[in-house]
């Protein structure tokens, strides 16, 4: 035990980034094992809580967080809003196609460092002026990666390793401004790029259904969430529906996140709004457009944030401000293509 602690301590001072980019999280697999041994609950106990409690008790200023989903798809909006409302500061972020999630955290000035694959844009919808200004001001430390690189960094962590060799990024400025290191394959001599494992302090994932213990099922594409769930030291699950344990046991093949990975469970219906939730509701393009438009003027933006985030008590309050159940029903019809 003593030897173990010393080893981990010693290694944490000797691991060194080789690229120009900083590595914001410690990739040491033994350090992670130690954490998982001592801090991760094995007991299948009820973990249901509220968004407010989950954020105040599990996310500290300075933590590094990984957000599930894909920018505007199956995102844990309620937790992101609560992070802003509780004015969390100096967070690190895995910017893995971070679009609306990035926009929310920037609105609250919550981030001071970011591993970038994709930030400041909202895909086909255009760029966020506010997010761009924040990044261009130099107030956020930036390290470049790619979508695959961040995915594989999660995967390395999920595998209990400290790095994985990959074949992207080589020869580019993306490599130069990353924290990756070139290496040679010991078997073939091929050149690879070693990307360090990414163990976030906190992972936050929105799922379709989950029981009180945290056994979670996702319908549709997984993006990187099966690995993020395993890589995260602490994991908050928000779910469209809390279901009886029986429902999980009926289709065990669908369980991508078993309870022993999960630290908190919150039921948040329409929890990905204004993002898309597959088979449930489509994204609210009008609301996303309104947000982007509000960014053209600081006063309009402040009023917009006050109306939708700071001025409401919780996520249900937010849903009331956007038209409540009537609007959500329209988005549900759009998703299921009841009306073409």
């Amino acid at each position: 035990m003593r030897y173990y602690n010393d080893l981990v301590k010693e290694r944490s001072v000797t691991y060194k980034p080789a690229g120009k980019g900083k590595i914001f999280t410690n990739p040491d697999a033994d350090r992670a094992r130690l954490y998982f041994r001592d801090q991760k609950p094995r007991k299948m106990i009820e973990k249901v809580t509220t968004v407010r409690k989950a954020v105040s008790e599990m996310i500290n200023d300075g933590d590094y967080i990984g957000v599930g989903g894909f920018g505007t798809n199956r995102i844990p909006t309620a937790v992101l809003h609560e992070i802003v409302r509780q004015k969390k500061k100096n967070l690190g972020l895995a910017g893995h196609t971070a679009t609306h999630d990035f926009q929310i955290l920037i609105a609250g000035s919550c981030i001071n460092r970011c591993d970038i694959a994709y930030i400041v844009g909202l895909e086909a919808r255009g760029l966020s002026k506010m997010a761009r200004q924040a990044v261009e001001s130099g107030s956020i430390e930036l390290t470049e990666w790619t979508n695959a690189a961040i995915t594989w960094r999660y995967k390395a962590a999920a595998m209990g390793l400290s790095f994985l060799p990959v074949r992207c990024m080589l020869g580019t400025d993306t490599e130069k401004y990353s924290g990756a290191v070139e290496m040679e394959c010991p078997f073939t001599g091929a050149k690879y790029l070693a990307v360090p494992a990414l163990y976030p302090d906190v992972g936050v994932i929105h799922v379709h259904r989950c029981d009180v213990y945290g056994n979670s099922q996702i319908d549709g594409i997984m993006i990187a969430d099966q690995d993020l769930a395993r890589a995260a030291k602490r994991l908050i699950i928000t779910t469209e529906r809390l279901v009886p344990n029986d429902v999980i046991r009926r289709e065990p093949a669908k369980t991508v996140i078993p309870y022993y990975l999960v630290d908190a469970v919150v039921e948040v219906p329409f929890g990905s709004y204004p993002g898309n939730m597959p088979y449930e509701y489509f994204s609210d393009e009008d609301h996303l457009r309104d947000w982007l438009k509000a960014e053209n003027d600081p006063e309009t933006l402040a009023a917009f944030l006050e109306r939708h985030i700071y001025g409401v008590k919780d996520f249900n309050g937010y849903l009331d401000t956007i038209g409540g159940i009537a609007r959500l029903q329209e988005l549900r019809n759009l998703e299921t293509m009841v009306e073409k």
Partner: protein
Amino acid sequence: MDYNNMELMICLASRYLEDDSIVVVGTGAPCAAAMLAQKLYSPRLMIMFEAGGIGPLLPSMPISVGDSRTFYRALGASSMPDIMETCQRGLVDYTFLGGAQIDCYGNINSTMIGDNHQAPKVRFPGSGGANDLGSLCWKTMMITPQDKRRFTEKVDFITTPGYLTGPGAREKAGLPPDCGPYKVITNLCVIGFDDESKRMKVESIHPGRTREEIIENTGFELLWVDNLEESESPRKEELAILRNEVDPYRYIIGRE
């Protein structure tokens, strides 16, 4: 025939996608080109999206490469590592990329303008999956407007590798051999890459455009094929399907 630049570029791109091949696309024009190809030329073209969608029957244009349209009635709803690893295993034939700047070797910048990475003059989204797809898919295509600002001698930041500094550079950097930029389809011409030098080489000029116009809108020296042709304008059936089935609300083709 009456058509706009966007329609022309999408139609031209669609003709390059062979049947029984695999293409990873993003939103916008590339997705439209793949949908058009599937409806007209290559019914068994496999369309994939980097967030995990495999072979959807796309009901309409996706807004995000991870939205539920990207796996609507699909063959598979997988994950980002699965799609990226499929690229890394060498199973993906085509991909489409875009960017703010591109040089004569097809290196693409979608990260920043300026020279201070920590506080850039202009910040763009970054690689997303572009670097991965451009590194790992066999043939990379681009659909882009052509002007001097965009087609530049030196990009401010190489986000995604083209042929880097020329022949052999990709392989030397450690990238998988035999892949890289294939065609650049602009509003003026179709550009390929010279086998020897790996530099951009104009293959055909669009109807009504001139060599001078192309030179004026390019910030570096272009090569030209000997038997320079006129690009074939959109065919009647291409436009009909593009307008009525692929993009009826003109989300993409109305951008012109």
